[in-house]
């Protein structure tokens, strides 16, 4: 799967809660929402902390860019805007959250549970970018 192959999909505009997260992608920075009151990390960003309920203490931290495959699947059937085969994965970040993403690789069937990943970016037409992952160099 090339990054260019998957660009036609429209990504909705951010809302008031998710805007900082999306703005950071313009600088190719991956943010994780964190509660300063209790330390809980969560994704996607929300208007309150799902651990302690606080709506006042939510902050952002920058992700390291490391990730590990929690589970993945190779999509073999085409949807509009996507060219199979491609890898959809739940990626576990050391910051304590799971992201849904793609693992971009020429060998989709070689990706498995526990594989180490590195952050990469897929540009969007409006200057934002989607965080995707590539297999770590071994």
């Amino acid at each position: 799967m090339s990054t260019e192959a998957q660009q036609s999909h429209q990504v909705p505009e951010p809302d008031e809660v998710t805007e900082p997260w999306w703005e950071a992608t313009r600088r190719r920075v991956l943010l994780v929402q964190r509660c300063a009151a209790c330390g809980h990390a969560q994704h996607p960003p929300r208007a309150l902390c799902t651990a302690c309920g606080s709506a006042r203490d939510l902050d952002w931290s920058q992700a390291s860019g490391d990730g590990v495959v929690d589970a993945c699947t190779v999509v073999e059937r085409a949807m509009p805007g996507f060219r199979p085969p491609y890898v959809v994965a739940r990626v576990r970040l050391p910051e304590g959250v799971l992201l849904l993403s793609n693992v971009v690789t020429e060998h989709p069937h070689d990706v498995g549970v526990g594989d180490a990943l590195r952050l990469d970016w897929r540009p969007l037409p409006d200057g934002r970018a989607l965080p995707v992952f590539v297999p770590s160099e071994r």
Partner: protein
Amino acid sequence: MSTSVAIVGAAESDLGVTGRSILGLQAQAIGRALDDAGLTLADVDGLATTGVSRFSATQVADYLGLRPAWTDSTFAGGSAFEMYVARAVQAIEAGQCSTVVISYGSNQRSARSRSLGGVVESHTPEAQFETPYGPLYPISYYAMAAQRYLHRYGGTRERLAEVAVAAREWALLNPAAFRHGAGPLSVADVLGAPVVSTPLTTADCCLVTDGGGAVVLTSLDRARDLRRPPVRVLGYGECTTNTSMTAVDDLTVTGAVESGRAAFARAGLTPADVDVAEVYDSFTITVVLTLEALGFCGRGEALDWIAGGRIRPGGDFPLDTSGGGLSYCHPGQYGVLLLVEAVRQLRGECGARQVPGAEIALAHGTGGILSTHATVLLGVDR
């Protein structure tokens, strides 16, 4: 324990490829279920349904000329109907209404209204954070659950296929099943079918058919004077867990743990008491995860437990005896047909697929992407 409410009527609409409208199928299912009960529309003062429009219960009530004193259109995918049983019991016991119809109809196959990506609402977090990556909805989520499960417990694709193979064996005994005439399904057939989202093939995925059904509930006291032997609602429970594909930390443990625990506790029963189980089989993996969550076997044990014919006709754990969503009928939200089959098994009406002497049945609905889980325990009136 137990409840004071019974199911007194149950019926399917036409199934398969019907060429009918959604409301036409609804009216057919409701009419047949009321006939089965020996009741009429004039008796109905409660209605629960989904999948028609934004105002589903209102729409069906209007279509039938009803002014119900109680309605429910909780949207919880295929598990909605098991939830409606709980709500209906509560409404009848509280005296808000006396006779409830739970119904469903879908023409998704005739209308070609199903899409691989599902229905994405642009204002949801999933539209921003998940849809851009192209997961098939709901298939890719179940695929990841299957991959994670097989990895964690060292299971094989071949052994997961048993769920689909057994479902076909049951369908061969059910003349109403979509695959009734299709002949047996082998493990090789399942693995050799086109891959949709690894490791799942089309044979791991439920059918896409038209279909519908309805059940009628009233008080047990009144049920004993009606045409059919009452099927008692013994217990119910539910759990709602996620809409996001990343909200649940462990893909192999579902909300059926909580829904099952609540249902068994309310009924004063244990998994060992269940004679026949109708467990939502949207995908082969759904059954594996649900059997473990409900406590029929331990975690990581389901593939061993179902091997050797246990869930096939003649086995000691009759499962999805209609042929299930995999081989009988899957009209998008299949849960109402789990109830219909459970009722028929408890009444002894199932002909070649009848489980001899079945007295306790379990119906378990699963909606969305392992999002909603609802368990109902039913029993003969002793």
